[in-house]
């Protein structure tokens, strides 16, 4: 197992180099000038030229990329052009909020998604099935900015039970953004659990379990669900990576200072060091999430071994 994990390190490094190079050169191709953007309507050609020169923005792209990577391998991700703050501190500063939001949203997504998926598979073609799938369909279809405002209006303004935005009230602050973000993710988990479980339910060993006289619940929980979760786990892992890389709409609606707003702000400002930092962070997360999924396979299916 350890050897397997270690073998992933060179791949991870290659991925990070590749993805930062692609990001860097793509952003060099599209138009944009971080200094002109910072000056907004107060654009002054002489000031822009002078500040660009001081920031070494007129150096060739390859030189700037090399400078960034040289710093990065020494643990220095550089400073944000726009905010003049260390990139690492901006990402680390946003991380706690993102971690909290991700954990809460995944809890909603996975509990609701798996329960809905199991119910609709077990009661296939029943009202429960149709209801759960309609719920799932709504989850993927309803835009977050709409469901967010509705819940804010109801629970925040009208009932006054939960804060409308911000992260100052602990669990209460997390409830609405977690429901909104989790619902959208629950939908795909529910649909996937349903189809996967339906497939497993038709296998011989499930039939054998029933033939032994076991009731529905032990068969589903002990025998069927565990095996049907393999494809679901892959999606779950990607959801972890996706949410940790930032959920910009949810963060914006609920005024949460998370990774998503840092990343999108960096793209909009053509803030290359900050964007590179965010990209490296996201790339590492995707690699880790994939690793987590692989390890979970081994746990769920004893036939899978990495040694």
């Amino acid at each position, binding site marked *: 197992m350890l050897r397997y994990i270690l073998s992933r390190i060179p791949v991870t490094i290659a991925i990070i180099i590749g993805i930062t190079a692609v990001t860097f050169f793509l952003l060099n191709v599209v138009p944009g000038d971080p200094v002109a953007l910072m000056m907004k309507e107060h654009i002054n*050609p002489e000031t822009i030229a002078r500040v660009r020169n001081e920031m070494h923005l007129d150096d060739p792209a390859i030189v700037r990329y090399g400078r960034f990577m040289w710093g990065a391998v020494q643990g220095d991700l550089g400073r944000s052009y726009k905010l003049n703050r260390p990139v690492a501190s901006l990402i680390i500063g946003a991380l706690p909020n993102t971690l909290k939001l991700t954990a809460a949203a995944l809890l909603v997504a996975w509990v609701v998604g798996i329960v809905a998926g199991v119910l609709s598979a077990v009661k296939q073609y029943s009202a429960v099935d149709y209801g759960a799938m309609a719920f799932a369909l709504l989850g993927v279809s309803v835009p977050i900015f709409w469901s967010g405002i509705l819940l*804010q209006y109801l629970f925040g303004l009208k009932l006054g039970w939960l804060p409308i935005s911000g992260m100052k009230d602990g669990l209460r602050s997390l409830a609405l953004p977690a429901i909104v973000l989790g619902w959208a993710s629950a939908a795909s988990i529910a649909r996937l659990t349903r189809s996967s479980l339906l497939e497993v339910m038709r296998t011989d060993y499930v039939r054998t379990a029933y033939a032994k006289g076991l009731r529905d619940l032990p068969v589903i929980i002990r025998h069927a669900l565990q095996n049907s979760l393999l494809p679901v786990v892959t999606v779950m892992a990607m959801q972890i990576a996706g949410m940790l890389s930032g959920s910009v709409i949810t963060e914006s609606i609920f005024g949460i200072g998370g990774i998503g707003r840092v990343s999108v702000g960096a793209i909009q400002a053509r803030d290359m060091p900050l964007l590179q930092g965010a990209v490296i962070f996201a790339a590492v997360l995707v690699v880790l999430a994939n690793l987590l999924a692989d390890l979970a396979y081994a746990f769920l299916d004893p036939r899978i071994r990495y040694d």
Partner: protein
Amino acid sequence: MKARLSAALIATIFTVALALNGCSSKSNTGNDAASAAKTLTIAISTDPGTADGQMTTEEYLLPLNLFDRLVEVETTGPGQSKIVPGLADKWDVSADGKVYTFSLHPGVKFHNGEVLTADDVVYTFDRMLNPKTKALNTDFLDMIDGAKERMDGKADATKGLQAIDKNTVQITLAAPFAPFLAGLATPGVGIYNKKATEAGGDKFGQEPVGTGPFRLKKWEYNAELVLEAFPDYFRGKARIDQIIAKVIPSADTQRLEFEAGTIDVFDLDGARTQIPYFRDNAKWQSQVVSGPRVGTYYYALNQAMKPLDNLKIRQAIQYGINRELLLEKFYYKTGVPAKGVLAPGLAGYNAALPGFTYDPEKAKTLVKESGVASPTIDIWQVTDSADTLKINEAVQAMLGEIGIKVNIKQVDSATWSASRKTGNQIAMYHSSWSADFNDPDNFLYTFFAPNNSVARSFNEKNAKVFESLDKARQVTNMAERYKLYQDAEKLVVYDDAAFVPLFHLEHLFVVAAKVKNFKVSWNGWSNMSYYGIKVE
């Protein structure tokens, strides 16, 4: 069954919400204790990023509240202002208009306890001009003698900056520049403490030390800033204990927070569609505070691009836009049609300009006279501005009626700003400008000086305009100066049709009843000093 399931879901959400509500009663008690302090809670849509006014040209919440300037601008009425003493009690200007001598208020304390001296002023201004600072706001100081050499890295200090004694600063300009004093009252030229600023280095923008009425207590990036009243403020401690600025990008969320009473001020500039709700609603209308924005909404026409190189086409656009209709439909009549570049309230404003009456027939005739067959124009805008899109679509229809086909091209803000500064990519765009300081130079020179005219994609190259703007910078007689700016304004708007004035708008806020003495600042900006505010 579906209904039952939905009911079950709602019941679950309610139960969880109730449970969370219950388990947090303890933290609420804590909040109540904190709210005993007189707190003004505001919402801002973006994090200011830095408190260093030298490093930003628009994010002025922190510079206005944490720092003071040598002179300040006082709002004397709606859209009216005057220059008053700030950190300088008095000042003299030499007869030739080149030497400014400031006497500092004695004993002014910085937030770190240091006392303000003339060295701090010299250091602050020199820091702005030092190329290593990478300052963006050099426009306000680049007329100082030796500034150019300093900015070009050819000098280690700025020749025109001198500390005469502990409390006297002398600033010598390279040439007379009448608006210099007004420029010193802009938020970007706050005075810094030399010791704290040098010690802060790159962190100064996040750990600022000023003399202002508030000092920074906490800054959670993209989430919340807390400013607390500075007890040793030289004009006396502020009447509120703290300001909490919540960073809430969504205007809808801001509105819900305001209605829930968790923020005290709702800026309607970011949520214009909600103006009628607040303005015409008995519950709220008495709490709507408005003031004129000393600024102009306009279209820029790029003469370097076809068919806008044709004067008749540009003139046709002036007459082909129904300004009153746009004001009524999109701005709920919270403004007046503009007749020129300068806004009412601004020194040198020319109320005698005739303006443009909507005249589609005249516009059609002008299009025909232009000789351009099927004129087509691309209006550029940034993608995330719904308000601009509405205006552009309306103008697209209006110009379509007079025979000019308009395409709306939406790009991201980075592409937009990079394309505009080239001067040869964007044919036409909608924008606005509000006064930084009360002088026509801040509008006309900013837009139509030779370099600026290209960088703003006007490409207005009328030698008479350049001559007037240059001359106006040298003349010290105000009446003569204003006449020169007004002449330039007539040329760019009426003779050359380079600039399509649209309207001057009011800036509306809704303010919680407990907040007293809330005044829109003279220029109508969203950012303002909260020193005079009271919270009951």
